[in-house]
């Protein structure tokens, strides 16, 4: 960029001419150039014009000359980038690299500037160095094309990553190195390194680890602990890294006295009750933090959003004592002006606002906001809920609360069309949406149709029929199914049912459920192939269609902190179902479900769950004698207890994994076939221990867990036999796919009977109706 060499005598411009333009229009140059016709231009004005034109980034070279009174601007345009190709990048994917290049301004169609190449080499080298690849070689090459264009190619040779070979802490007298280095992110090469990459050096990882070292000592009384110096060195061939931290432990200190000062808002003694730090105990920064957090949280719950509690230590070095003064600064009591939502492209504002416990126009409460976050998570509509509390401009005691949500798919959608000689044309459609069109209502429609079975199912549920959260729902079902498809006995069941469901919230976590319904069942046994007990039962009752007025009362308590992958809280549901007198068979069924999530560690959540079901009839026993044609007694049949089509079943992907669906418990054979037909039973006792690893995958959508399932189904209560329990252990992978939840189980049934129908690999798709 050469300034006009000869001294530039000032003159007034009569006209301006621009030479050398290709892509850029004269209009553009005039827009950006601070000179117009009639301006008086001197050396400084010319320099300013040139600088302005350079800032546009379009030109390599700009020269201003004077021809009589015409100002001639000669420019040389920078070429446009035609194609960018990246070669040899493995560790960092091409799109990610392209994104970085775009930020530097290197993208197809943009103007090309040689300075950008410099920055590209620098950025890529830094990116690879951060991944421990110090031997990376970045070689950009530019090939000019016609019409002032260029192709840019960047060759990357990544080279081997430098591995941490040696980590050493010097000066640690009281604690062993492995104890101190537990939980560090940097580590020397070990068998897990191929996956965890913990032997790759990064400055952030090391500073995080040193902070852990600091906390380790400060939590054990070492007030004067200090990491005096750290050395990071690399071998000449750049393949091995060495980390060394030199520490000074100092002495342990005990607490001499604890006082609470400042404006504590609540009575002083009450605040002092929160203090965990006791005199004559070892100094521990963690206890200080927990105490000050507790005090801040307390104040935060009653309006003091900017409260600050600082534990001020007064160190008495001679006799190694520390006096702690918790200095409380409540700050102003804060009002919430507005509550806003960002990111809800589908879910309605009211559907979210009705879950919140923090109101607008009210004082700020941290626990109300935390509760709101949990309730939004429990809707299952969002993969992420973040909260920000920006101050209202121009005020010092008002904030807005902004909930940033990321929508996720909350339902499943399957359409099937097929043809088989056996079943003829097969059509199947199943849609289930937990957040139908963002209204928060749940809707499910399933239509299946083929020669052997029909199924129509519609259900609808509105969780907020009333403002307070009384929920109303209904479902209508009609199906004609061959039960053997579900591994249940061989008979056809046609069932039509209609049910209305109501829910009444009792507290933040408890609710009561009520449902009424009418259904009728037609059982069509297959001559000779239906299990004998079923045939006897029907013959005993002397009829095949059963209608029932069904009522159910249930109580549920749900304190889980998320819908898809909770890490804390319990879920309990107790339900009593009764068919009213006048139904064909009068029976009752109890069902109790329990699940508790124990947050053991950020990377491990234990889930203990159990289910108990029991049913029996309360009508009178029916006995009947069946006679052959010739009048002789064929058999005596009895119909008692829970009707077989209401039996509990166990086994399968969502019950005891490792066994085929519904195949556990009593079974029977038929006259003409000794195929074992599972009958289910009136008593069901199952349970499971599951270890979930939430942080194994970085997305919240996928979850891996190891489990032990056990339990069984029994014909009736007095058939319960602990030794009859089945059990299996294995690993389960759950993935929240866009189309619906997918579950994959690998299990080994370690407690099973010789002829149980086990299933090592199980796969289930779509949510259960």
């Amino acid at each position, binding site marked *: 960029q050469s300034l006009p060499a000869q001294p530039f005598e000032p003159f007034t411009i009569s006209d301006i001419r621009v030479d050398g333009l290709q892509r850029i229009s004269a209009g553009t140059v005039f827009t950006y150039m601070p000179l117009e016709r009639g301006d008086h231009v001197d050396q400084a004005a010319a320099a300013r014009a040139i600088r302005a034109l350079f800032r546009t980034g379009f030109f390599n070279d700009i020269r201003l000359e004077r021809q009589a009174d015409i100002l001639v601007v000669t420019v040389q345009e920078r070429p446009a980038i035609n194609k960018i190709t990246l070669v040899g990048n493995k560790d960092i994917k091409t799109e990610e690299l392209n994104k970085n290049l775009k930020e530097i301004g290197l993208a197809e169609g943009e103007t090309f500037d040689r300075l950008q190449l410099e920055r590209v080499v620098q950025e890529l080298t830094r990116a690879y160095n951060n991944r421990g690849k110090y031997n990376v070689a970045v070689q950009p090459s530019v090939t000019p094309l016609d*019409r002032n264009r260029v192709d840019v190619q960047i060759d990357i040779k990544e080279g081997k990553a430098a591995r941490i070979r040696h980590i050493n802490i010097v000066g640690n007298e009281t604690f062993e190195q492995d104890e101190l280095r537990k939980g560090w992110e940097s580590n020397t090469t070990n068998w897990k390194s191929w996956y965890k990459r913990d032997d790759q050096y990064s400055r952030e990882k090391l500073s995080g680890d040193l902070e852990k070292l600091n906390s380790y000592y400060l939590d054990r009384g070492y007030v004067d602990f200090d990491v005096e110096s750290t050395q990071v060195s690399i071998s000449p061939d750049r393949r091995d890294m060495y980390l060394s931290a030199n520490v000074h432990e100092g002495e342990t200190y005990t607490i001499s006295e604890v006082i609470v000062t400042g404006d504590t808002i609540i009575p002083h003694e009450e605040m002092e009750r929160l203090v965990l730090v006791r005199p004559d105990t070892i100094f521990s920064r963690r206890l200080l933090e927990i105490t000050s957090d507790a005090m801040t949280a307390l104040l935060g719950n009653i309006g003091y959003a900017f409260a600050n509690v600082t534990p001020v230590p007064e160190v008495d070095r001679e006799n190694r004592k520390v006096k702690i003064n918790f200095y409380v600064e409540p700050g102003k009591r804060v009002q919430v002006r507005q509550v806003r939502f960002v990111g809800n*492209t*589908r879910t*309605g*504002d009211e559907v979210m606002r009705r879950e919140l416990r923090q*109101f*607008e*126009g009210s004082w700020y409460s941290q626990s109300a906001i935390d509760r709101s976050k949990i309730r939004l998570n429990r809707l299952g509509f969002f993969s992420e809920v973040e909260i920000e509390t920006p101050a209202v401009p121009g005020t010092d005691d008002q904030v807005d609360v902004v909930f940033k949500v990321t929508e996720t798919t909350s339902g499943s959608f399957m359409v099937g069309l097929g043809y088989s000689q056996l079943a003829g044309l097969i059509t199947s459609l199943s849609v289930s949406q937990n957040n139908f*069109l963002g209204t928060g209502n749940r809707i499910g429609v399933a239509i299946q149709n083929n020669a052997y079975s029909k199924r129509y199912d519609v259900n609808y549920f509105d969780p907020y029929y009333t403002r307070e959260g009384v929920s109303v729902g209904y479902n209508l079902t009609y199906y004609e199914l061959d039960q053997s498809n579900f591994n249940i006995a061989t008979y056809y069941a046609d069932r039509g049912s209609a049910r209305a469901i109501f829910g009444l919230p009792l507290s933040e976590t408890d609710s009561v459920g009520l449902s009424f319904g009418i259904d009728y069942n037609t059982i069509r046994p297959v001559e000779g192939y239906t299990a004998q007990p079923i045939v006897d039962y029907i013959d005993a009752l002397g009829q095949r269609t059963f209608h029932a007025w069904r009522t159910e009362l249930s109580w549920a308590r749900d304190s889980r902190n998320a819908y898809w992958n909770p890490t804390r809280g319990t879920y309990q549901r107790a339900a009593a179902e009764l068919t009213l007198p006048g139904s064909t068979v009068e029976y009752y069924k109890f069902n109790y479900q329990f699940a508790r999530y124990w947050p053991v560690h950020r990377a491990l959540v234990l889930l203990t769950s159990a289910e108990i079901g029991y049913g029996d009839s309360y009508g009178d026993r029916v006995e009947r004698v069946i006679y052959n044609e010739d009048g002789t007694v064929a058999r005596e049949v009895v119909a008692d207890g829970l009707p077989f089509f209401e039996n509990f079943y166990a086994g399968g992907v969502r019950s005891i994994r490792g066994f085929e669906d519904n195949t556990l418990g009593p079974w029977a054979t038929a006259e003409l076939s000794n195929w074992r037909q599972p009958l289910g039973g009136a008593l069901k006792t199952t349970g499971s221990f599951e270890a979930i690893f939430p942080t194994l995958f970085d997305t919240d959508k996928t979850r891996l867990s190891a489990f032990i399932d056990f339990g069984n189904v029994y014909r009736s209560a007095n058939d319960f036999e602990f030794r009859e329990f089945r059990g299996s252990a294995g690993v389960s992978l759950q993935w929240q796919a866009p189309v619906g939840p997918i579950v994959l189980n690998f299990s080994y049934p370690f407690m099973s009977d010789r002829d149980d129908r086990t299933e090592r690999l199980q796969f289930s798709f779509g949510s259960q109706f």
Partner: protein
Amino acid sequence: CGRWGKREDPLETLPVETLYAQAKASLEKGNLSRAQRVYQRLIARFPYGAYTEQAQVELAYVYYKSNRPEDATSAVNRFIRTYPAHAHIDYVHYLRGLINFDRQDGMVLRMARLDPTQREQVSLQQAFNDFNDLIQRFPQSRYAPDARARMMHLRNQMARHDLNVAVFYLERRAWVAAANRSQHLIEQYPQTIYTADALAVMSESYARLQQETLAGDARRVLELNFPDHPYLHGSWPAERSWWRKLTPFGSDKRSYYGDLRASS
């Protein structure tokens, strides 16, 4: 990789006029992905010339139509930076407003007559600013009138969002919240069709807060300007009918006095 019969990709050899014609044809036929690819190659191969400038405008339009707001916005911004004095620059500013104006979650919401103001408001404010930018810079542009109309619509949408929230709080006896939200509506979005409803909510809230003077004054302003408002003649806002809420398609769009005035 297979060398077999790899014939030269036509897009690499065709002259600029043919390329432009092909792209334009695909755009008219609605084949957005093909149009996009052809426009991109045209711009890359011919970095300057009238066709290229026009191609860049139409490429931005293709991104907008294929619901890719981020790409559309960056294409529009790049065009404005490179050709600030272009003849159709006002259209490009107008397009930038359209991108955010339509940034809803696809057709489904509109089709089901759901209340768009229940959804996210961030992009509406952005669209409003873009259109405002257009009528400031190019008051005589032939897109200015439509931009003004869309701005009015946006303001009504944003006002309706505030009204939804105000009524939400009114029905839950959070009267301070309801009063403040309606005040925000009146101050931020003056002369929208929902000002009357806001006054009604404010007056009702003050009444419940036993603030007679404030309630009275608000009511007087309402009576003066909107004497036929239902609040003055009985219970308002109308409760959603119990049976409509039972059907999945019971729309969550409440009708306010403002809607009637808008249609009359």
